[in-house]
């Protein structure tokens, strides 16, 4: 059973600020959704491998050399606030 305090904790982890109304709705809906998914627990899966990747996959290597990348002007073009070649953010500490 998910409590309102669980929803508040998860919201903090997810960096979401929820209104009281949202907290209530999500508490109810997460309980509904996860309640509906309880059927999974009936399945015996002790000896089943969890799927890491759906098709067989191999490590992908490339030469360790400098490639061409986007010019910083293009990278910074979308940012809400900048200071020369840096992203500017509100104070951190």
């Amino acid at each position, binding site marked *: 059973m998910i409590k309102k305090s669980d929803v508040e904790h998860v919201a903090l*982890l997810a960096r979401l600020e929820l209104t009281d109304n949202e907290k209530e709705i999500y508490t109810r809906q997460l309980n509904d*959704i*996860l309640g509906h998914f309880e059927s999974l627990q009936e*399945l015996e*899966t002790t000896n089943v491998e969890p799927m890491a990747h*759906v098709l067989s996959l191999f490590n992908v290597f490339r030469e360790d050399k400098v490639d061409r990348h986007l010019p910083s002007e293009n*990278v910074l073009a*979308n940012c809400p606030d900048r200071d020369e070649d840096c992203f500017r953010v509100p104070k951190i500490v």
Partner: protein
Amino acid sequence: MSLYYLTAHELHDLLLKKEISAVEVNEAVFDRIESVEDSVKAYLTLTRDQAMKTAQEVDDMIGAGRPVPPLAGIPIAIKDNICTEGVRTTAASKIIYNFIPPYDATVVKKLAGQHIAMTGKTNLDEFAMGSSTENSGFFATHNPWDRECVPGGSSGGSAAAVAAGESVCAIGSDTGGSIRQPAAFCGVVGIKPTYGAVSRYGLIAFASSLDQIGPFTRDVTDCALMLNAICGHDPLDSTSSPYEVPDFRRCLVNDVKGLKIGVPREYMSEGIDADVRQIIEKAMSLLELNGARIEETSLPHLGFSLPVYYLIAPAEASSNLARYDGVRYGFRSAGAQDVVDMFMKTRSQGFGAEVKRRIMLGTYVLSAGYYDAYYLKALKVRTLIKEDFNNAFEKFDILLSPTTPSPAFRFGEKTGDPLKMYLSDVFTIAVNLAGIPGLSVPCGFVNGLPVGLQLMGRPFSEGKLLQAAYTFEQCTDHHRKHPEL
């Protein structure tokens, strides 16, 4: 017949014969957009100037006697969660409402290499999370067959654009049915290719182990042309498969003699509309008449695919969407006290309700104490579902089902209850979990609304799906019907 309702291959033939020009084709499509877009609302952004410029270049190439690729000058729409250099790409989310990508997605680059005329960027459920476009951060798209009904989702804008003559083909993405379900609802052909068949580079990530890009077209031949254009290995996507891409046109063979088709009984029992069942049974008889061998089979764990999907996809989404923090691009909430406050306010104001719900669900199932019970359990059951498909494909070449249990639903019908909305993906989800290809082809109508037939195959058996769908299409005329708008 209006130019805007022709297929890409018909238009290509007319272009080569110089009976029409690419500029005329694109003018016809943009005129059509002008007259019907207010009632369909398929597009978030139109790129008319760009399309007309490409069309002119294609006409010049043809005029100069130079060879042009099969999709040259064809008006094609791109789902707005796929990056297009210099053209706003929003994923229908307010959190990146102003994002102008500095690069093209690999599929967009490949299509540009074919000289397609990009018509614009189509509407979707925010970050592709939804089954109706009602979760778009901007507005909903309407089903061209009945404007009171949803077009399906999440690629609803792409499906509606092709159905309404607002583009000839379109690109979408499919994480749990987001190509096949809207293709079925709008009466067009849609395919989710094998995981790894098409590069995901430049696709705004939702659930990376399930996402795959694919086309919407008016017929199976165009589907083959689009797959030819977009499939193939890409060094920029390490999960893209280094496989030999066949020429899919060679798979357009009108023959299913001896083809072994399995019909999983789980798909034909649970909550399927009687009318839909009848249409699917008719489609089965038609394939049998053409020599296919159809037998009932079973995928015993299929019933678990919905919970598995709605644990794995939100878990991956909660991690993928952590990047939207107001620092590097998109929306930033003003007046925050410090950086954490800015993250919280930006994300709370920028994301819509369904996206927040899935981030919450995903964060919860990944959090300490719940990981084993939910996420790990889901990964294990995903293995069981994949094994069910492996077993079935030892006996059958193709599996067949309805694409959706019922035709398009009405606006507001499922928005109040997220679980009800999730259930509309019940027939398409397992294909993504198993990483296999799935194709939806129009197979009839219920009360004027289209119904889709879903064909599923082994990994990288797109050719076989095309062949079966092509054969089916040759003895039906559903693909030649168009909505009245």
